[in-house]
């Protein structure tokens, strides 16, 4: 068994995380750029198109000058898949990611947005740590990391409700659409809407977050859930909240639903929004 274990140096992980922090903050992923382009063609509000053009110009300036796309360089949220036969030499995966995050936020002149205590002290930790790490063990000896820096403005518009099973599909649609409309311009629309359905209270929230890192333009593999995504998106965009909440046809780029088995008594549903600068970057070692 011992021969099957693969060793990855601590520094290799930390350095890759640092690089990831810089890339995620300054480079808008191509799937997001494509969605902004599509929205520009579909949007009929003159003001809305003006904002969409500014997003494209902003992405170009950010890439040219290595400036963060948004000053809120976010909470560093990591989705990690670690092989059962992967070992980090010199520390834990949590320590390696934390070290890489601190270095990345310092080197990239990224904003440090984390305070040490939520209620009483609220003193800035000055290196944007701790990160949030969602770790899953998978077969094999690989290591796959996705970083999705999460801004406070969109995160604050999150919502979760424990529906009754009787509420069904319509209950889910109404809750999600209502949450997005009530968020208005606050989460910097057009947004990506992450929806988690099923599981428990915390599982639904996790799924909603995870849904945000799915490639834009892809749909849920279950045809019924893919149809649910389409229905919710149509209702959201009929609201005319629009870019920046100041009116228009495109309030959200996409709705991503992720589902999980749930208790006979429950129908949990969680909504997590990503702003138009839907940042993410990743690596495999």
């Amino acid at each position, binding site marked *: 068994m011992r021969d099957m274990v693969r060793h990855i140096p601590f520094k290799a992980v930390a350095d890759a995380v640092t690089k990831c922090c810089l890339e995620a903050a300054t480079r808008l992923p191509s799937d997001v750029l494509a969605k902004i382009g599509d929205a520009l063609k579909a949007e009929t509000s*003159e*003001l809305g198109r*003006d*904002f969409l053009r*500014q*997003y494209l*110009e*902003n*992405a170009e*300036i*950010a890439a040219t*000058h*290595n*400036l*963060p*796309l*948004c*000053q*809120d*360089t976010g909470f560093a949220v990591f989705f990690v898949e670690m092989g059962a036969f992967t070992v980090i030499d010199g520390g834990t995966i949590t320590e390696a990611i934390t070290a890489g995050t601190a270095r990345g936020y310092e080197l990239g*002149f*990224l*904003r*440090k*947005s984390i305070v040490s205590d939520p209620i009483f002290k*609220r003193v*800035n930790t*000055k290196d944007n740590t701790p990160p949030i790490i969602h770790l899953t063990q998978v077969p094999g000896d690989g290591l796959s990391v996705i970083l999705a820096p999460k801004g*406070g*403005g969109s995160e*604050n518009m999150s919502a979760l409700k424990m529906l009754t099973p009787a509420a069904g599909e319509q209950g889910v649609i109404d809750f999600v659409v209502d949450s997005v409309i009530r968020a*208005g*311009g*606050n989460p*910097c629309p057009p947004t990506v809407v992450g929806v988690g359905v099923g599981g428990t209270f915390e599982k639904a929230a996790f799924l909603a977050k995870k849904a945000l890192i799915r490639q834009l333009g892809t749909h849920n593999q279950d045809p019924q859930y893919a149809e649910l995504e389409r229905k919710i998106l149509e209702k959201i965009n009929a609201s005319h909240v629009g870019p*920046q*909440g*100041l*009116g228009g046809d495109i309030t959200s780029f996409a709705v991503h639903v992720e589902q999980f088995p749930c208790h006979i008594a429950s129908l949990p549903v969680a909504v997590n929004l990503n*702003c*138009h*600068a839907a940042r993410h970057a990743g690596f495999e070692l």
Partner: protein
Amino acid sequence: MDAIKISAPTDRATMKKLRAGDRVLLSGVIYTGRDAAHRRMVAALDAGEPLPVELENQIIYFVGPCPAPPGRPVGSAGPTTSYRMDSYSPRLLRDAGLLGMIGKGDRSDQVIAAMQEVDAVYFAATGGAGALIAERIKKCDTIAYSDLGPEAIFRMEVEDFPLVVAIDADGNDLYRR
């Protein structure tokens, strides 16, 4: 529609003329402040102490910028969500002479009522366009509460900062069309 050029600091007559939906290019000196700085400023007013910056006729920008990289006055610097300042803004409008606010997202009835009393305007900057906005900021200095890091009060010199009048001095509100 051409943008209206205005300068900061400003005056009541200029603010009173702006209409919800107007595109504006703002140049001049503005001050920043977000959650923690607002809390401290209102605490200072409550204690009868002077504010660290004179806000009479000024425009405040709700922002916590990124650190300045070498050779630039400031890092990325787009607006933060404004509703978190709703509990503080009426006080600064009524008691400190503030005439303009720049942020993103809608405002409470209480803020809009105070704006109407003093002829103040709420401008929307483009959320998530921090790099583009940074290009319009020519100078940026910390002037108070430096211990707050990105939440400190900065004095910014801006040139053609692109804004939209979201709520005008008569209470017309683009978010409640």
